[in-house]
């Protein structure tokens, strides 16, 4: 196996690895701004400079030349080389921490900072700013730059992003992202030299759905997400990884939250699903987790404790012969399994369906045209709902049928999710339903007309599994505490099964997973 020495550490490698990545895997940080594993190499920031040496070989004998102490001599290249662009070869010797490199790094940082406004106190990037980190770690504490700093005219570049060119270090990640990943030639370097600007090209606009990523990969505060500006200092936020539920793709996301409120979503690297990115649509839909949330149950429009709501629901279901069930593919695979079993064994009905969206009806698992990640299906778990069998039985009504004429049923069990609320008039007829049982994390006008309305936990407050449009199963864990008395949907169904005399005994997510053989 080929070997390379980085800072006296011998590392084995295979293939043709990137030096920065190889070093990172082995616990050595080569600082960089412009390099990004998903983008082409630009080599412009000069921060990742390393010393590159090769072992001295005697031309005649083919043996390695040794010094007095018996160590093999190393020939270092006269100039430091960019680590991002260094072709790794067997026997190579890399120094990332020699005096020369530390000097070079300091020198580069001095230039990077020369025209940087150092306005960290008012910059949203502070705390997660690469330039800030490196300045602490590698930089000078004082600048000898006494000239007037460069300033740019402020430009509105898009509603999603706020650009502050004065902070820009011209690493070109945003422009490379736009052309290489988003496939749009709207944003690029303009002007030249010290006046170089990253800007929307004349007459163009940024229209792609992935602009937030430009802010994510911006190593400084030159591009920030308008929505998050001045909302919170990042070090006051708590972080948790979960899944995005805004479409069938199921991108991995980092939720930033404080005092039970979500402030933003950021993509988390997930090799199989979204790699480094997520779409703006999903990114900005975190808001529904903060708005009109339900913390307690109600019966007949009045607050009710959980037990009384539960027994009322059990009575209704026992008494009803003809039950319509509109499930939701926002619910986890575990819930869907319990739900499916419930309406087969406890309160049998053929009128069960999860398909409230056209894409679900068509079982469309494709992406929207021109999109990198966003699926046509707005639900994260349609695949799971289908696998759980939440489809109408023989002669059963579809979800669309039930939504159209709910009064035909003795009782209707309705899952209300953020998508169906957003879709507008879908629920228009539901007030006509007799014996409506609602399960939802959100408040709605139906709470007043429903016979029973349960507060359920939103996906960010519970665990479960989603199966995305590509059939990939992804588990998620709670990142926020549940609101008030909100319960998991599977918990409600499990307790109902007990009250109705056919107890499942599935009172934990682990039991559900093992019962339905969903894995751990």
């Amino acid at each position: 196996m080929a070997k390379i020495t980085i800072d006296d550490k011998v590392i084995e490698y295979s293939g043709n690895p990137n030096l920065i990545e190889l070093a990172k895997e082995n616990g050595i940080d080569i600082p960089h701004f412009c390099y990004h594993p998903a983008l082409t190499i630009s080599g412009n920031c000069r921060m990742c400079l390393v010393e590159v040496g090769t072992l001295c070989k005697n031309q005649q004998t083919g043996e390695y030349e040794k010094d007095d102490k018996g160590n093999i001599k190393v020939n270092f290249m006269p100039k430091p080389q960019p680590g991002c662009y260094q072709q790794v070869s067997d026997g190579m010797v890399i120094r990332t921490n020699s005096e020369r490199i530390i000097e070079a790094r300091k020198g580069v940082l001095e230039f990077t900072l020369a025209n940087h406004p150092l306005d960290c106190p008012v910059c949203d990037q502070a705390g997660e700013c690469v330039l800030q980190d490196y300045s602490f770690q590698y930089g000078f504490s004082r600048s000898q730059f006494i000239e007037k700093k460069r300033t740019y005219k402020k430009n509105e570049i898009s509603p999603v992003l706020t650009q502050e060119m004065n902070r820009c270090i011209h690493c070109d990640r945003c422009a490379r992202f736009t052309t290489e990943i988003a496939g749009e030639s709207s944003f690029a370097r303009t002007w030249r030299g010290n006046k170089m600007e990253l800007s929307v090209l004349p007459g163009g606009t940024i229209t792609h759905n992935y602009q937030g990523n430009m802010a994510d990969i911006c190593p400084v505060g030159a591009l920030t997400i308008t929505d998050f500006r001045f909302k919170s200092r990042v070090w006051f936020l708590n972080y948790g990884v979960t899944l995005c539920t805004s479409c069938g793709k199921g991108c991995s996301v980092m939720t930033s939250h404080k005092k039970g409120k979500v402030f933003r979503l950021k993509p988390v690297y997930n090799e199989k699903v979204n790699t480094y990115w997520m779409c703006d649509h999903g990114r900005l839909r975190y808001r529904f987790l903060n708005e009109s949330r339900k913390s307690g149950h109600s019966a007949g429009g009045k607050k009710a404790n959980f037990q009384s709501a539960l027994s009322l629901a059990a009575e209704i279901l026992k008494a009803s012969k003809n039950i319509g069930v509109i499930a939701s593919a926002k619910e986890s695979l575990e819930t869907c399994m319990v739900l499916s079993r419930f309406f087969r064994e406890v309160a049998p009905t053929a009128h069960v369906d999860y398909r409230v969206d056209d894409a679900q009806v068509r079982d469309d698992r494709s992406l929207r045209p021109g999109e990198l990640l966003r699926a046509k299906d707005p639900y994260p778990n349609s695949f799971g709902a289908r696998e759980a069998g939440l489809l109408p039985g023989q002669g059963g009504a579809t979800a669309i049928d039930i939504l159209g004429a709910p009064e035909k049923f003795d009782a209707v069990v309705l899952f209300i999710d953020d998508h169906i609320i957003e879709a507008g008039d879908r629920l228009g007829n539901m007030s006509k339903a007799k014996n409506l049982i609602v399960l939802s994390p959100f408040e709605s006008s139906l709470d007043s007309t429903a016979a029973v309305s349960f507060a359920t936990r939103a996906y960010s407050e519970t665990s479960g599994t989603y199966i995305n449009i590509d059939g990939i199963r992804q588990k998620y864990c709670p990142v926020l505490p549940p609101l008030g008395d909100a319960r998991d949907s599977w918990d409600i169904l499990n307790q109902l099964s007990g009250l109705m005399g056919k107890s499942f005994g599935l009172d934990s997510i682990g039991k559900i997973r093992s019962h339905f053989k969903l894995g751990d």
Partner: protein
Amino acid sequence: MPEKRIILDKIEDKHSPNIDFYRGNGGYEALKKALTQMSPSQILDEMKASNLRGRGGAGFPVGVKWSFINRTFPGPKYLICNADEGEPGTFKDREILQKKPHIMIEGMIIGAYVMGLDAGYIYIRGEFYEPIQAVDKAIREAYDAGILGKDIMGSGFSFDLYTYRGAGAYICGEESSLINSLEGKRGLPRLRPPFPAQVGLYGRPSTVNNVESFSAVPSIINNGGKWYAGLGTPKSGGTKLFSISGHVNRPGVYEIPMGTPWTELFNDMAGGVKDGKKLKAVIPGGSSTPVLRPEELDGMTMDYESVQSKGSMLGSGAVIVLDETTDMVKLLYRILHFYAHESCGQCTPCREGCDWYYDIISRIRHGKGRLEDLDLFERLAKNIGPNTICAFGDAFTTPALSFTRKFRDEFVEYIKNGNK
């Protein structure tokens, strides 16, 4: 040694741009010889024997560069002529382009034949309006005469040639940014490796040479590499064009053998300092090369090694002569203004460093300098040249350092007593 005109032979004749005149004086004979009597490897041997070093400034041996191209590599391969003569002080290529374009075209076709290249591009700086007209006309004439296009002179070898107008960026004289510019991209230098010989224009193997380098080729074919090498010094073969400007009596382009003493070029050809003034300094190879004081010129001959031994560079042969009235502070101010304007802005040390240097010299020039600014030049330079993608970083720190070191008292005077 007097002027020896090989490339500039008969250039004073008003018909010298025409193909008939050129052919009437032995033009395209070398091409004929190359295509009919010589194999590519024979020509390559002659080129290597000639000691012809690239005339764009770096002085890389042309024969060696040509041998980097793998003739048998499948698919199209390109030849590029760098006619983006942008170094302040250089105006030798313009002379060839405008008055004797056929000698360059002939050299290019021979080069293409040696390396097995399919098409050539002449990248001409946008400001060269008349030279572009002349080259375009020459290319048309060559096509009409069967010297370009399919089956050149019945040899079976085909080669197409095009001109491309640059937009006037200094950096596009750097070969990899020239290639980017030719491709329609921003003129930013590329990271190397790969070098153009592997991945060049449109990702294909390519060779880039200077106008003057190509123009030297026909005489090498006609007379042999040894003959050409014999004209110059052991390490720098042949003749070289020098564009001498500034405070001299007869500025202009002179073709002299490599190794000609500086005094001959300066006194005998250019006629010495204008108006009987005293010589103050000489920039021997274009604005980016270190300035030399008169005492450093003693015994200097005009070839790569000798100029280098004096601590400067021959560069593109752009000799700028400065007399005693020259204000070195204002001159450096002007030079750094040029470089600050021309930095491509791609990599950090150069983008930020250029303007920083310019800001510093502006302050000094306007009487607001500090003594530590001179040390700042020194300190910053250590982190510019070695850390940048291309040689532009060295191109602007070099004059700054050599000016402030060799004429420190003038800078100190400005700093202490202001601009008088």
